[in-house]
């Protein structure tokens, strides 16, 4: 006959002495009336008794040199390394992995989402009103030299005013004639005026 499903654990705990006095009294009253639970309690008690009887021998003694070896090994652990000394204060607080892992996961997801949003806002989106030729210009070409057309200036200005400023400066520098380089030979070629 099987024990009652709802009392199975509690009967095992009764045999283990893991119930308080009130719970044990109530369960014993049930066990006396229930054949299945009584049988289960007998078996479990027999098992706990067998476990108690398989006690550890008290005759074993450590060898004479054992304490010396232990003391030597413990002293050899000192002094602690710099790294151990640094992390030691953090070890006093046990890390609860069940809480730490989801928190780390959530942080990783948040960082990922933020980085994706940041990259999207940097590249921006093309205005629908921009002409076709402007829309076909990729974002990466903003930094390279674009033809000086109004559509291109508009495209770059929509992305950022700094980029437009940079583009205009670059184009102005490109159109400026190179500064003359004066060397000794340059002056030698000039005929003296009498």
């Amino acid at each position: 006959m099987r024990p009652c499903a709802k009392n199975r654990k509690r009967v095992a705990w009764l045999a283990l002495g893991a119930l308080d006095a009130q719970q044990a009294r109530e369960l014993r009253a049930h066990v006396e009336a229930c054949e299945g639970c009584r049988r289960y309690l007998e078996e479990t008690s027999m098992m706990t008794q067998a476990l108690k009887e398989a006690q550890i021998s008290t005759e074993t003694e450590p060898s004479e040199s054992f304490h010396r070896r232990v003391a030597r090994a413990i002293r050899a652990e000192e002094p602690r390394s710099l790294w151990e000394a640094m992390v030691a204060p953090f070890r006093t607080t046990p890390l609860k992995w069940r809480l730490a892992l989801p928190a780390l996961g959530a942080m990783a997801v948040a960082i990922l989402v933020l980085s994706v949003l940041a990259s999207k806002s940097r590249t921006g989106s093309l205005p629908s009103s921009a002409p076709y030729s402007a829309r076909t210009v990729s974002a990466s070409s903003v930094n390279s030299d674009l033809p000086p057309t109004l559509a291109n200036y508009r495209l770059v200005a929509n992305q950022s005013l700094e980029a437009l400023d940079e583009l205009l400066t670059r184009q102005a520098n490109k159109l400026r004639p190179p500064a003359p380089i004066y060397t000794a030979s340059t002056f030698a070629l000039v005929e003296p005026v009498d």
Partner: protein
Amino acid sequence: MTLETPETGSLLDRARAGDCEAFCELCRVYETGLVRQAMALCGNATLAEDLAQDTLVEAWKGLRRYNGRCRFFTWLCAILLHRHRNALRQKRPLSLAAFARRDENELEDRTDRLADDGVSPDQAALAREEAALVRECVQSLPLKHQQVIHLRFYVDDSLEGIAAALGCSVGTVKSRLFHALEKLRAMRGIRALFANVEQKVESL
């Protein structure tokens, strides 16, 4: 096993403050009990001393983690069980050989002891076989179940102490004890043992 005294408490406080010599003195108090526990696990005196030594060194290194919510000896035994399981994983063939030797040695020891107590050699041999069978069955349990059985029956600590030593709740300890007993009950060796006991009871 109650080893905690005001003296050990004071040594423990000094050791936690970083006093290496105080910890060495503390080891002197606990090492015999620890070697006996190790001997029961690995069955070989040399291996048992190595295991106990490693346990004490690891305890010194991680002493800041001991929060005083369980007996210090229980905490040491929890480390010992972890290290033993790791050693078994790394050197399984050697450890199994040691188990075989343990059975032979224990048979002689237990038989001699019981013979001295006025117990017949047959009864002594039977008692030894039953004890060895029970311990073998416990050894074959998963680590988490082995730990709670060992700490409950052989270190004899409270459920709260076991929970603190293992870093889990009392409910978890009770649950693991229940499942450990269920697994032991399902083992063929244990069933045979109970059948013998029942036969004996009926014949009386």
